[in-house]
Structures are given as structure tokens and as C-alpha cells.
């Protein structure tokens, strides 16, 4: 039962974070939503018994991809979509 509750919570958080990432006007905040989405996805992978997938999800999405987005971001002015 506890497992199901935690899993549903993680899925809810990831849905909310995905909505933030898509809908928020400010790019910086949208990126925060993306980070939260990838962290909660990696927790979901871990709960489903795939530790390596979750670890690499965390390292590559929350690490590398966000860093690439940020470096792309700092070459332009802060804009609101």
C-alpha cells in the first residue's frame, strides 16, 4: 500500500512538473519544471526496479541536457514566450 501511495505521488509530481515545463511563460522556470520532471521520473524508474535506468536518467537529463539548455539560454536575452 505504501509503495502504491509513493508511486502515485511521484507520478502526480511528474505530471505537474511536465505541465509547468510546457505552460510557464518564463524559460528559466520552465527549465526548473523540466529538472523536477526528470528527477521524479528517475525516482519512478527506481521504484519500478530499474536502478541503472533511473541513475542515468538523473545523470543525463537532470545533468547534461539541462546544462546544455542553460548554456544555450545564456547566449540570448531573457525572454518571455
Amino acid at each position, binding site marked *: 500500500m505504501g509503495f502504491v501511495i509513493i508511486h502515485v505521488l511521484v507520478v502526480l509530481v511528474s505530471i505537474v512538473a511536465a505541465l509547468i515545463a510546457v505552460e510557464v511563460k518564463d524559460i*528559466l522556470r520552465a527549465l526548473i519544471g523540466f529538472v523536477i520532471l526528470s528527477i521524479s521520473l528517475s525516482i519512478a524508474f527506481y521504484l519500478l526496479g530499474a536502478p541503472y535506468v533511473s*541513475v542515468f536518467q*538523473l*545523470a543525463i537529463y*537532470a545533468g547534461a541536457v539541462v*546544462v546544455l539548455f*542553460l548554456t544555450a539560454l*545564456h547566449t540570448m536575452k531573457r525572454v518571455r514566450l
Partner: protein
Amino acid sequence: MWFEYLVNIFTFPGFLFIILIAFIYEWVDRKLYAAFQNRVGPWVTGFSGFLQPIADFIKLLTKEDITPEGADTLIFRSIPVFSLAVALLCSLFLPISGIRGLVSFEGDLIVAIALMTLLSIMFFYAGLSSPSRFSIVGAERTMLQLLSYEIPLMLSMASVAVSTSSLSIMGVVEAQRNRWLIIGPNILSFIVFLLAAQAELERIPFDIPEAETEIVAGWLTEFSGRKLALLRLTKDVELFYLSGLSTALFLGGPLGPMVPGLEWLLHPVYFTIKSLVVLFLLSLMRSIFARLRIDEAVNFLWKYIIPLSVLQFLLVRVVA
């Protein structure tokens, strides 16, 4: 069982211990840095200035806490808290009171480094959310530097994982029971790891994001009062974390000659002594170099350190 675990997390190998030892490490670092420069360093508060970092922290807590006009208030206010939380979470991975850290699972070697990247991203947000141009320049430099030092850091960790055939910190420490990893071809990855750690900590020669003489304090410029106190504590915890991580990966962590029945005391003592040696190396590096320019640093890291780390990875792969 659960209660005991919670007590552990909040007191001994957990938060309280980590915060206290982070203050002590700052003191040791300042004393060493001063000694290398023929200065005295902090010496008024407590024995030989021992309490100076704590006094600084308390002083900053009582100062006025300003959120500058034009700042992105939500991000600006929450960054200090979240960055301290991430730094403390990282430190729970360290095997202080035994070969097993408080948080330990398969693959935590990669999570430990991914969380460090998250910390750098938070510093970028801290700079970008404040209105000052010094902060924005500092934030951009943080990101450029992160792009250059992350690959060597990951490759040195990868060579550790290959030579011990384990992806958890516990497995790496366990594999060093007979021979520390630094003895052998992994000495190169130790050097690469220390350089990357210096860049991660934003200390000389890689203190470009907070270069005092150019951009005041970089992304830290607009923070004051309690926020600055928390961010400085984050830096201290990060210093402890990286020297502890290199201890765990290359110097055998808390292992050493054991007296039966005294493991609870000897493990933390060995761990602290070894990580103080790493801290000595980091302080030495800080005092014998000068600051690089950002283009020089990116050039140096991409042209020399990344090929060196690829080379050490191949070397480890061939030998081990």
C-alpha cells in the same frame, strides 16, 4: 529501527556532524592558505581562531537580509535553502562511520556526481535571478566552466568504476580493502579528479565565476544576511563533500588498521585524517596558482585535461 535511522541522519554521520565538520574544514583551509602565504589567518575567536567560521556564520545570520529590487523573488529566496539541502543530501552518500554511507544503493556513484551538477545549476539560477550584471556574468561563467570540467570528472569516476567493477560507493570502498586505488594507474584519475574538484568548488586557479578583482563576487554578489550565510555554508559542505568523496574513491575511505570493538571510533577518525590530507592538497593548489581567464581555463580543460582523462581511462581499462 526507523527512529534510530532518523537520529543517525540528523546527528552523528548526518547533518549536525557534517555542518560542524564543514566549519572545521573551512577553518583548516583558511589556516593552511594563510600559512602558505606567510600570514597568520584567523586567530582571535577560540583556540587559534577555531571558532571563526561559526562566528562568521552567526554574524551573517543577524545581518539585514535584502532582496534587491528587480530580482526574481521566488527563485532568489529559495535558492540558498535548496542548494544547502542538495549539498547536505550529497554528504549523506559519504561512507563516514563504516563502509556503508547513510544513503547507499546500486548506482549512487553516478547520483553523487549528478547532484553536484544540480548544485552548479542552482548557482547559475542564483546568478541569473539577481538583477546585477556581476551576478549574470558570474552565472554564465559558472555554466561554461561546468561544461568543461564535468567530462573529466565523469571519466575519472568511470575509471574508478571500471577498475573496481562496481557502481556504488560502498562497492568501491569494499574493493580497496587490500590496496588503495591511488596506488597503480588510478593515480592519474586522482589528479584529474582533484583538478575537476577544484573547478567545481570555484577555487583558485578556477575561481573564475567569483573572481573578486573582476566581478566582485560573481553570482554571490547580491546575496546578503541569512541567504549569504546559507550559501557560504553550502560552499563549506561542498568542500567537505568533495574531499570526502575523493577519500572514499581513491584513498580507501574509512578503512585502515582496525582494533576489534573500536570500529565506531576508528572509521570516522581514519576518514577525517585522509580527507584532511586531500584538503591539504586542495589548499596547496589554491595557494601556488594564479587565476586563469575564462577562455584560458576552457582551453586548458578541453585541450589537456580531457585527453589526459581519456588516456587514464584507457590505461585503467588495459591494466585492470
